[in-house]
């Protein structure tokens, strides 16, 4: 069914045909024809952000919490360049988003026209793919292909740059059914390799599942299959920051997050295991620590839909290219067909080793009597919200790591954080995107005051659309993680890591018409959190916490998994004086 319509109308029609009902954006000269079409329809809701970076992070939050692609519409030039951080963030964390940018008319491209930028050139390294559409007749096919590329295989951001004359001109529109793309990533894993992995699973004495964001990207079925595999094999499981929730935190085999600020037992188990099964993770440097000391005695299997992730950092013995859900299904099939064998004696002994590591109680901390410890704030937040239909976003820094350590995630798509790029300013707009997708759920952004200020303009968006996002700010008046590194690695020279001239967050909330809550006494914390939860609208919760708390455990850069620094309270003198290093 081919219809003739303007390019601008095609954009709206293509979004509708792709099942899009939500767009985050900001208008400008080069996208006015598309905004005119948006004005004249009711199928798509447009959320006006206050800065284009906010639009992309909101779309990321929307995408991550729904599994559907997030859609962004911004103008040319500064609209596009402001989107670059969000695009890079989505690329690093494999988040499917489709960004539509206006462009100056084709006949003005290259003339340094007003609000012209080489958008496809600028965004080429930070998108999975991008297109400049110069002919209205190619617009529909390009848009449908864009959605396919964003969501197929390893998901990622795509961008379609649409010059203004292409928006005005008429062309023929075709629906997505006609879309053909040679881009068809392999989803089924190689059965020989899968059988090899199963053989290794049958004999391994010290196996571990190391899971990542790929499990969540693969969809809810992948999480279900993972749970079945863990339950039936009784192997321990740890996860990266990005994979939290794919296996429930309350599950018996859960070791907690691994990596630089991961749990002691998780990192020690990674170091000492004899079979590491990487499912949808990518051996990031925050995970591996020192490469030549990374899990030296293990057979490593790696399941990833992106062939380039395999052997990129760590050489693996059993590479399996495929979609996590498809591969897990085959692993279970083969394992069951071969008689559901594991080395249960060995695994039992392995668990007793792990239990000994757990006794270190690496997350214990010294509670404050007069000041709120950030860990305590998150423990109370967890206790008071865990039974809610809850989604958590975070900014980047100490609070992010504490949130990953002290909050429990029992389902996928409930945890939205900037992992790969580490984008301060991600969490607040992301929480807006999540709340848009889940209007009746509790959405909390765990923030630090410095990160939060980076995109605080989005308070306007939250207010305009009545989005009751809770901004839970752990305010230490410091760039906490920077300060921690300066304390530990730069001779306590706190260069520029003090948040001076902070606003009064309660008044700031009130200035936007929202509610502000200040809490500084541990005794008041529960009541204050309950007050936050009870308020039907956006809340800025200014939680004044201990200013010099460090985030532990910590694997310092360039150290191995078994060279973790632990907090004073957890170790009680187990650290040797020379390196303050626990071996």
């Amino acid at each position: 069914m081919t219809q003739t319509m303007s390019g601008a109308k095609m954009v709206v029609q293509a979004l509708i045909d792709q099942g899009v009902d939500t767009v985050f954006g900001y208008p400008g000269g080069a996208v006015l024809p598309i905004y005119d079409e948006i004005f004249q329809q009711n199928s798509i809701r447009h959320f006006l952000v206050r800065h284009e970076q906010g639009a992309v992070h909101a779309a990321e939050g929307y995408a991550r919490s729904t599994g559907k692609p997030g859609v962004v519409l911004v103008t040319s030039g500064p609209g596009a360049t402001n989107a670059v951080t969000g695009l890079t963030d989505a690329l690093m964390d494999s988040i499917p988003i489709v960004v539509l940018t206006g462009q100056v008319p084709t006949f003005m491209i290259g003339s340094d026209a007003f609000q012209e930028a080489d958008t496809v050139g600028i965004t080429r390294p930070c998108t999975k793919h991008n297109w400049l559409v110069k002919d209205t007749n190619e617009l529909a096919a390009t848009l449908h292909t864009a959605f396919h590329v964003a969501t197929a295989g390893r998901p990622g951001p795509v961008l379609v740059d649409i010059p203004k004359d292409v928006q005005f001109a008429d062309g023929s529109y075709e629906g997505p059914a006609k879309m053909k793309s040679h881009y068809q990533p392999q989803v089924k894993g190689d059965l020989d390799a899968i059988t090899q992995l199963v053989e290794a699973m049958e004999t391994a004495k010290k196996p571990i599942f190391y899971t990542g964001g790929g499990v969540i990207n693969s969809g809810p079925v992948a999480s279900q299959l993972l749970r079945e595999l863990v339950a039936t094999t009784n192997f321990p499981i740890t996860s990266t920051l990005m994979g939290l929730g794919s296996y429930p935190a309350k599950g018996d085999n859960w070791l907690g997050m691994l990596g630089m600020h991961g749990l002691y037992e998780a990192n020690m188990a990674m170091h000492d295991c004899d079979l590491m099964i990487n499912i949808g993770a990518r051996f990031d440097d925050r995970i591996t620590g020192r490469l030549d000391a990374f899990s030296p005695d293990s057979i490593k299997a790696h399941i990833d839909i992106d062939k380039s992730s395999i052997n990129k950092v760590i050489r693996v013995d059993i590479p399996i290219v495929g979609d996590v859900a498809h591969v897990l299904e085959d692993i279970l099939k083969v394992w069951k067909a071969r008689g559901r064998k594991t080395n249960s004696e060995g695994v039992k002994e392995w668990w007793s080793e792990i239990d000994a590591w757990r006794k270190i109680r690496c997350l214990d901390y010294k509670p404050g009597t007069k000041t709120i410890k950030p860990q305590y704030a998150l423990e109370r937040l967890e206790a008071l919200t865990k039974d809610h239909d809850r989604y958590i976003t975070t900014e980047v820094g100490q609070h992010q790591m504490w949130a990953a350590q002290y909050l429990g995630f029992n389902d996928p798509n409930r945890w939205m954080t900037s992992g790969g790029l580490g984008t301060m300013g991600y969490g607040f707009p992301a929480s807006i995107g999540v709340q848009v997708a889940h209007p009746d759920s509790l959405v909390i952004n765990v923030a630090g005051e410095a990160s939060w200020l980076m995109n605080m303009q989005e308070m306007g968006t939250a207010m305009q659309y009545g989005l009751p996002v809770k901004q839970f700010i752990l305010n230490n008046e410091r760039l906490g993680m920077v300060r921690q590194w300066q304390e530990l690695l730069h001779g306590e020279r706190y260069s520029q890591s003090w948040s001076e001239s902070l606003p009064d967050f309660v008044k700031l909330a009130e200035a936007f018409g929202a509610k502000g809550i200040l809490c500084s006494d541990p005794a008041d914390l529960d009541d204050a959190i309950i007050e936050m939860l009870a308020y039907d609208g956006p809340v800025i919760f200014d939680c004044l916490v201990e200013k010099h708390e460090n985030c532990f455990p910590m694997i310092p850069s360039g150290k191995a998994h078994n060279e973790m620094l632990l907090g004073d309270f957890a170790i009680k003198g187990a650290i040797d004086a020379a390196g303050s290093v626990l071996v």
Partner: protein
Amino acid sequence: MNALNITKGSSSNSAYNLRSGHEDVIERHTLAVLVANEPGVLARVIGLFSGRGYNIESLTVAEVDHAGHTSRITIVTTGTPQIIEQIKAQLGRIIPVYDVHDLTVEGPSVERELSLFKVSSKGEKRVEALRLADVFRANVVDSTLDSFTFEVVGSPEKIDAFGELMRPLGLSEMARTGVAALSRG
């Protein structure tokens, strides 16, 4: 390793047939990359090499199938075996890349490069340049009373050798196309 009875790369269809790790050996590989002939595709390939810090020794590109809008990019690159594998995987990830062939490992292949040399000299040197050109089966494509322009086709090594010989004989300018390569048979 052997406790679990796994042989490295023993799975025939798996992602990589891992070659035993001489991690620090730098290898030179010729890659043929078939791409959709669309705007920006060369920038994507070059951007990948610069962005990820890979080497390009030479790169040639031209459309090879007009009806199918397909171009062939021939890249000569160097790196450790792990880096070479990574380059191929990263190239394969670019959406308009249809296929990546590593001609260095996929069996015998032929490599040719075309080059032009301008040699300006007089007297005995001019005669010697012409004589050597004949040895190298170079064609004279332009001549003046005090210069020759030679065309040499061959392997990059042959062209290197010719250039070295011409240097003392008045080599004033040279241009090379970079390598084009095909598998044999």
